[in-house]
């Protein structure tokens, strides 16, 4: 590559300012492994395929639409749902009145995993991380007063897609809205569930078939409906860097396309209805470039299937600001973080956006925090005058170069996946999961050393944190309300009709019938989400994940001041010498919360620090976790909670331990736990609570102190 004619002169000037050091000392190696220089010039763009193209035209780097926000700004679509359908419905009405344009429904974990609210496994999860939906009656309440022929509704559902999508369709029918009038998106991206979020029900094979069935059904009857939202968001939240997010998401996309083609569909009947969902983190220019690069790559990847309709290779995406980047400490800073990330998404050219509430590291959004979040993007959209120009960063030497680097780095990983036989096969080998976990462990190590700055967490910490705003609590009565309604529905419906419909659904599962079509009569007959899921589970089985953990990634990245780490290693060794074994910790996740990033990092880092770490399977009941703690004879159980189940699940675990004679076993908790709940947990016997962002050496040190006091004291 040639250099700017006066480059040498500049380099000398710069070097002089740095007291003689070479300018390349200013280079920065990003977590993606991209070398970023301190200065870019026009020469960097020479011969670049992705630079200087036009919006609305292949390869779509500059946006899928010709006019982008100059014509119509992105859709403000806030994701929300909690407690009962009635509560969520009231929340939606308020949000729509205040300027929100589309709805986006969050379901609780019981619903995701296809359990009715009265199932004993999910007692701690009802209405917590989203709204509880058990039947079409709940769906009707959820959308009460919301005209489904006009409102575009997006639903984050992957596991129980069949009963939920069918529920939405039937709720619309009963509003008098026909199938073809429905517009919106269902996430329906099961592959990433096996990678990160774990809210699947069935094994990959049948799950892929469900997706093809939905695409097929919708392509003929619901032409305005997006049948899948291929999501990188959760990968980013699990720790994937921007290149990994891009590569794995697009590779997932290719896998869905292949599945649909295999089931006999024509590319142009479904590909225009594929949409994407990216997560946007704090690395400003990186993630702007990521969206641009993703559009280029998707165009290139789709070309292999020879679509006739240009829309088939056009990447349209929803974006969400990163929940993981929000801190529990000094939480008002989160408003600023979210604003930055919103700008990133907008400058990257997103089609719709969710901005997080500043209190999400603490609890569920309140009316107040939701308003701030919504206004964050309204202000960007309506006050900042940003919308007038399409892809305003197009032509920036830096952004174009970064876009190009992401394209080539992500392409390498996509090729690697292709060699493994596609994403489904790659997931089987565990490769993507390991890469994400490795990336997460590295990131954690950088943060714990202060090399990645997080204000209020590892720098500029507040002396004393206090919460001077309300935190939303989901009342414990949600489950009772749901159970009562389930009883009522089961008492008033035509039981023979339900059984027949469910038997038909099971038969369709066995005989390759269209599952969405077959589920509609069952929903109309008031079969529940759990019953419909079971009717298919009887054929498909329930998927059980294998948890693998990498070791070494955390400590290998912890290069700088390893004083804190060495000290803990010394202490674990002393413990071993005095107690005859290493401190032994069981990390467990109870309830239906499938977020396993924190839990895995803790396992891998603590082992690096000299603990013996047992990891439990996901989705444990307190009783199961206690059995494991007793059997493995651990010193301490670390319960990870990110989905608001802590107040029932953790005290229940302590009870179960006592029952089995294991009262000596200490219990500590970590995750998203509102500070207001700490005392409640301490009172029920929890010895320490580690909020999000607690550096590993700190939590490990504290846990170790507890053990030293007890055993060496």
């Amino acid at each position: 590559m040639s250099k700017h004619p006066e480059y040498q002169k500049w380099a000398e000037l710069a070097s002089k300012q740095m007291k003689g050091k070479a300018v390349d000392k200013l280079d920065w190696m990003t977590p993606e492994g991209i070398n970023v220089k301190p200065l870019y010039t026009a020469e960097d763009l020479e011969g670049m395929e992705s630079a200087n193209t036009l919006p609305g035209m292949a390869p779509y780097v500059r946006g899928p639409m010709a006019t982008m926000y100059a014509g119509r700004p992105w859709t403000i679509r806030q994701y929300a749902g909690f407690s009962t359908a009635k509560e969520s419905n009231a929340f939606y009405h308020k949000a729509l009145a205040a300027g929100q344009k589309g709805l986006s429904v969050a379901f609780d974990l019981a619903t995701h995993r296809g359990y009715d609210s009265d199932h004993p496994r999910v007692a701690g999860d009802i209405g917590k991380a989203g709204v509880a939906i058990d039947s079409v009656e709940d769906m009707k309440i959820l959308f009460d007063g919301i005209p489904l022929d006009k409102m575009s509704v997006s639903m984050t559902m992957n596991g129980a897609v069949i009963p939920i999508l069918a529920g939405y369709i039937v709720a619309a029918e009963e509003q008098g809205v026909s199938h073809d009038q429905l517009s919106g998106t269902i996430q329906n991206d099961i592959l990433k569930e096996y990678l990160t979020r774990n809210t699947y029900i069935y094994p990959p094979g049948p799950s892929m078939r469900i997706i093809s069935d939905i695409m097929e059904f919708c392509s003929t009857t619901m032409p305005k409906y997006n049948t899948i939202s291929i999501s990188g968001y959760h990968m980013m939240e699990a720790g994937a860097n921007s290149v990994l997010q891009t590569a794995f998401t697009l590779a997932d996309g290719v896998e869905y396309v292949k599945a649909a083609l295999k089931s006999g569909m024509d590319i142009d009947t479904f590909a225009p209805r594929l949409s994407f969902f990216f997560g946007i983190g704090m690395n400003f220019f990186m993630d702007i470039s990521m969206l641009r690069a993703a559009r280029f790559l998707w165009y290139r990847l789709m070309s292999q299937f020879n679509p006739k309709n240009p829309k088939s290779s056009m990447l349209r995406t929803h974006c969400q600001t990163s929940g993981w980047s929000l801190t529990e400490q000094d939480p008002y800073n989160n408003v600023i973080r979210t604003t930055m990330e919103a700008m990133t998404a907008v400058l990257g050219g997103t089609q719709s956006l969710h901005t997080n509430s500043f209190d999400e590291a603490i609890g569920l959004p309140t009316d107040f925090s939701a308003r701030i979040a919504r206004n964050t993007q309204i202000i960007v959209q309506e006050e900042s005058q940003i919308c007038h120009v399409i892809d305003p960063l197009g032509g920036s030497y830096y952004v174009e170069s970064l876009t190009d680097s992401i394209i080539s780095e992500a392409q390498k990983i996509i090729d690697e996946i292709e060699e493994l036989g596609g994403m489904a096969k790659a997931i089987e080998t565990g490769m993507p999961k390991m890469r994400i976990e490795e990336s997460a462990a590295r990131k954690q190590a950088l943060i714990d050393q202060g090399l990645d700055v997080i204000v209020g967490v590892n720098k500029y910490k507040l002396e004393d944190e206090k919460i001077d705003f309300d935190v939303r609590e989901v009342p414990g009565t949600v489950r009772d309300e749901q159970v009562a309604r389930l009883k009522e529905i089961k008492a008033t419906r035509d039981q023979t009709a339900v059984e027949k419909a469910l038997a038909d659904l099971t038969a369709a599962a066995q005989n390759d019938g269209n599952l969405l079509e077959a589920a509609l009569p069952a929903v109309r007959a008031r079969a529940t989400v759990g019953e419909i899921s079971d009717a298919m589970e009887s054929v498909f089985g329930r998927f059980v994940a294998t948890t693998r953990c990498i070791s070494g990634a955390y400590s290998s990245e912890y290069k700088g001041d390893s004083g804190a780490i060495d000290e803990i290693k010394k202490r674990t060794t002393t413990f071993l010498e005095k107690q005859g074994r290493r401190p032994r910790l069981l990390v467990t996740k109870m309830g239906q919360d499938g977020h396993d990033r924190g839990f895995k990092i803790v396992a891998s880092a603590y082992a690096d620090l000299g603990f013996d770490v047992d990891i439990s399977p996901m989705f444990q009941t307190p009783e199961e976790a206690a059995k494991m703690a007793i059997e493995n004879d651990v010193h301490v159980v670390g319960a990870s909670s990110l989905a608001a189940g802590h107040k029932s699940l953790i005290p229940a675990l302590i009870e179960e331990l006592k029952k089995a004679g294991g009262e000596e076993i200490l219990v500590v908790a970590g995750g998203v736990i509102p500070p207001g709940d700490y005392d409640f947990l301490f009172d029920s016997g929890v010895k320490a609570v580690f909020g999000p962002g607690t550096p590993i050496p700190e939590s490990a040190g504290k846990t170790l102190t507890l053990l030293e006091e007890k055993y060496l004291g």
Partner: protein
Amino acid sequence: MLKSPEEYVEGILSHDRLALARTITLIESTLPAHQERARIIVNQLLPHTGKGIRIGITGVPGAGKSTYIETFGTMLTEIGHKVAVLAIDPSSSRSGGSILGDKTRMEKLAVNPKAFIRPSPSSGTLGGVGRKTRETMLVCEAAGYDVAIIETVGVGQSETTVSSMVDFFLVLMIAGAGDELQGIKKGVLEVADAIVINKADGDNVTRAEIAQREYETALHMLMPNSPNWTPPVLTCSSINGNGIDKIWETIKEHRTKLTDCGEMASKRKTQALDWMSFLLDDGLRQWFYNTPDVKKALNELQKDVESKNTSPTAAADMLLRFLPTIGSTTD
């Protein structure tokens, strides 16, 4: 609260999970006081051991050992057995801490009231695997578990140690990597009582069958371990359960055959004697190397040998001369 060895013994004999778990901790402890206590407990339990079936399972990482045990163990509990699983995880060498994730792959068995699963860090020392696992197995038998399954990763020498403490040693293989015997040493095949090609499902069935024939040929060339038993090569799927019951039939057949001709009894006797001599060797070594004089001299002599100031023979000779003088310095 468990205090005296008698309380532990009582707990174990009344099938108490906690007592069993805590006893295993004592057995695994590196503290002499704990080991002493464990010895007393194990001694008192000995009369209650010996009736169970002991199965060792090895295979390369990812061969599906844990998944196999999940399916196999669950089947055994369904037909009335109580199953103890001892899983030995390799320690991370860097700091010595381990990630013990076996139960994540034995999700059903982990919560099964008729099963007891204990993953153990191998703590780097391979001798440790043998010593501790054997005693743990005995304690599990005393606690009412009539089938004990030991999982080891087949990459070190731990599997030969394990094979010398079980009745039936099963080597789990996967198809496709057959030619170089998948990093499993030939020695392991020599002690196998059966070879099982796992993951014979989906589009892998044919490949598994081909591998089956390959291993049959390979086994033909080896001297059988026992005059009364020819190790079969079987296939199974730990995911869909095909072939799992056949393996159990094989294990039972092996047991009947070897019991009838008396080989089982003599095998266990030999194992007990081997065990004693192993402990003796191990004790002697520890005793010798832990003597302060020896430690000091060893350190210096190593340097001398390196710098060629002393010959290896002379150095060893000098060290061994400490033997008569270290009478009672044992701890």
